[in-house]
């Protein structure tokens, strides 16, 4: 018998019940089982490469739910990633996706693009912004771009505001750096209030996972090397991430790419061991925070990103954090763990499927009566906030921003 690493899909079909895309479309050809079958047919040369094949393989959120529940233990995620790369090489990708990859590959390009986008939005009449959509989201519901990127706005090292307990390294990711500086500022506020010295290495750049999803392994290689240099190897303070996708890259994906991209395995393992997600870290040290008696009373619900649970791994601890945060009335939504349909660029490429998923999420979050919806994934955040009804008073923020609000001004 062949060794157990050569596992075949038993075609039991249980992954269909986990797949958010299948649940909306009810089409076998949009299921994880079918994607595995198509990849197998392509590998054994019974099916030639084609744009149709590329579309079927890419109509996927890369949420990892299928792999997490597969009784045969198949790594769908890795197989899909490899196939997406081969298909992108053979057939290219949409122009918009190619330019995204182009920008993510170089920090200065992203900075320039953010500037252009900000000016562009300033010039567009708001009536146009209301009517136009990008994917399933109206343009005027995209986040406002800050003038300076988060990392430019702060020194590389920020001292604690009370007796020092230790130091941490903060990997901000592109979203916090270019879109959600509020998340970055809140994270620094909370960590320094706890007594941590926060180092934000200037050399860090995109985690490279979005490029890998779109099959751009070479461009990804440069960013990964830059991050390894910026973060150091096995020695050093804990590395904290505020985005589950970046965390998955640092903790899991780099390790799988050691051979392909000639990475230093020792440094990669070292970084993986140092990486923690910010939410469990803060929860563990919550008693080091002093909340003022004047903490507001807020009704809060939450959304668990797929990459938090099925990529990064472990409980997201957001529920526990909310239960222990002073002034928070936590109101869980029954479908808090369901996928929102964001999926990197999925909401842009397949807006109709994505819209069905996010509308359900919005309805049940609003039914909880919460004022604030927390999630620790920037794409989920854009997607959820972008699909709230025009007049909805609900705000979507990172859990650390909620903590910062309750801490009040320093």
């Amino acid at each position, binding site marked *: 018998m*062949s060794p157990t690493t*050569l596992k075949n899909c*038993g075609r039991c079909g249980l992954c269909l019940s986990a797949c958010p895309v299948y649940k909306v479309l009810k089409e076998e050809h949009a299921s994880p089982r079918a994607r595995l079958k198509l990849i197998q047919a392509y590998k054994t040369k019974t099916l030639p490469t084609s744009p149709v094949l590329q579309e079927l393989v890419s109509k996927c959120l890369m949420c990892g739910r299928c792999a997490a529940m597969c009784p045969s233990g198949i790594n769908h995620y890795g197989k899909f990633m490899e196939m997406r790369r081969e298909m992108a090489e053979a057939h290219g990708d949409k122009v918009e996706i190619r330019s995204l990859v182009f920008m993510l590959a170089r920090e200065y390009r992203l900075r320039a693009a953010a500037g252009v986008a900000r000016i562009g939005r300033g010039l567009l009449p708001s009536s146009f912004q209301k009517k136009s959509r990008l994917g399933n989201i109206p343009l005027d519901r995209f986040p406002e771009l800050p003038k300076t990127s988060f990392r430019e706005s702060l020194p590389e090292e920020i001292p604690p505001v009370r007796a020092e307990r230790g130091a941490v390294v903060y990997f901000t990711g592109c979203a916090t750096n270019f879109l959600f500086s509020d998340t970055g500022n809140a994270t620094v506020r909370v960590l320094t209030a706890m007594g941590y010295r926060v180092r934000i290495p200037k050399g860090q750049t995109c985690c490279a996972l979005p490029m890998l999803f779109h099959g751009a392994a070479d461009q990804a290689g440069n960013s990964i090397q830059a991050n390894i240099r910026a973060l150091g190897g096995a020695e050093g303070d804990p590395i904290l991430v505020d985005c589950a996708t970046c965390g998955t890259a640092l903790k899991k994906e780099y390790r799988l790419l050691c051979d392909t991209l000639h990475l230093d395995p020792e440094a990669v393992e070292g970084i993986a061991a140092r990486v923690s997600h910010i939410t469990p870290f803060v929860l563990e040290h919550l008693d080091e925070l002093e909340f003022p008696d004047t903490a507001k009373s807020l009704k809060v619900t939450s959304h668990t990103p797929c990459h938090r649970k099925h990529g990064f791994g472990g409980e997201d601890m957001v529920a526990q954090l909310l239960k222990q945060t002073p002034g928070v009335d936590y109101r869980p939504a029954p479908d808090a763990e369901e996928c929102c349909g964001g999926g990197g660029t999925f909401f842009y490429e397949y807006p109709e499927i994505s819209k069905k998923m996010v509308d359900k999420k919005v309805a049940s979050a609003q039914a909880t009566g919460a004022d604030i919806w927390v999630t620790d994934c920037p794409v989920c955040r854009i997607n959820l906030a972008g699909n709230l009804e025009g007049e909805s008073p609900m705000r979507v923020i990172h859990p650390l921003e909620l903590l910062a609000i309750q801490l009040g001004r320093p």
Partner: protein
Amino acid sequence: MDTVGKDRSLYRTEELSCYAYDAFVAESMPDLVLFPKTTEEVSAIMKTASRHKVPITGRGAGTSICGAPVPVKHGVVVCFSKMDSILEVNTRDRYAIVQPGVVNGDLQRALAPFGFFYPPDPGSMEVSTIGGNVALNAGGLRCLKYGVTADYVLGMEVVLASGKVVRFGSRNVKDVTGYRLSGLFCGSEGTLGLMTEVILKVVPLPETTRTLMVTFNHLDDTAKSVSDIIGSGILPTAMELLDKMTMNAIEDSANLGLPRDAAGSLLIEVDGIKEACERETEKIIRKVRDNHAADIQVAETKPEQDRLWTARRSAYGVFAKLAPDIVTEDVTVPVSKVPEMVRAIEAIAKRHDLTMGVLAHAGDGNMHPLVPADRKDVDHWGRVELAFKEIFEAAAALGGTLSGEHGIGIAKSPYLDLFMSRDSIEFMSVIKKAVDPDNLLNPGKFA
């Protein structure tokens, strides 16, 4: 294609190849896949197919493990997955009316708020559709007490081979108006017509459940316990047997603290009114003690019950990870013959040098030998096929049946004559010829 429109038709090879399989190993490509949403569309498809003599194979979620929805004669696959509305839930009259594409688990979630449920619970229930469940007459874990799919089908709407739409049965539990034709369609595997609506009986959720895990040092003691418990007037919802090989394989990978030396263990669950459950649990404990139980654990709370169920639930995954492929069987024997059948299976496995674990729904004699296999290894695969043939023969000798709940499809059709006389098979083909003279409905099955 015109009947359902382009966006619900598939004709490109890449897409068609995703409808060539189910959970069985064989594959066969359809020429076209259509997703109807209404009875009228199904009828129109069937009329066209009948005019042009094109084979039609129905499909739900494709989780069958006997090849039932594999279009062996090609033609059109009619996929019911998008015909998925729950049309009516009526708990006062204790029925629900559903379209065939409704997922079993979704129906359960729709019934739960009313305090009701639909008992058949195949392992695939979170994916598989009611249409597929009815076409394969699916079973499940709780069948021992509650019965199988056929026991819950009150009536249905069917599109015949001609395209004509007919209704059988009604909303009434008691109904002897005419032949019980909806019963005939249960397990017909899409060879007699295409179901477009099903009326199902639903029942109130039990007040409480109790779960017991009992281990034994001798296989005969497990079987004796099963028949003693049932003989004493208790009807548990489930009585699951795990043999020594299965428990050891689970222990190797999951380390749940299962006894490695025990010959077998029984997972027993009772449900109903709280007081009755308590009395039944006490009685079960007495019975298994009389039969030399080595260890007894009782769970009252949900987390404890889940812990006891973990071993049973993880069995398939554990065996699936042992080799590239996994094959499972479902011969069924009278309850009293279970130990004999387990021993026969173990002897056959040994003779062909195969790893084989035995799971069984011991309360109803439904055996599930699990075989880690490798279909690319010609010698090994040959031994697996030979072993299964011998298992079927052993089951036949014990007065058993070829399939308890998985169906015949293409997986088991070669062995039909081990269990049915030529005249009985002939009677089936008389019916088939009468309702589908051109052999258009799922051709190549039961034959």
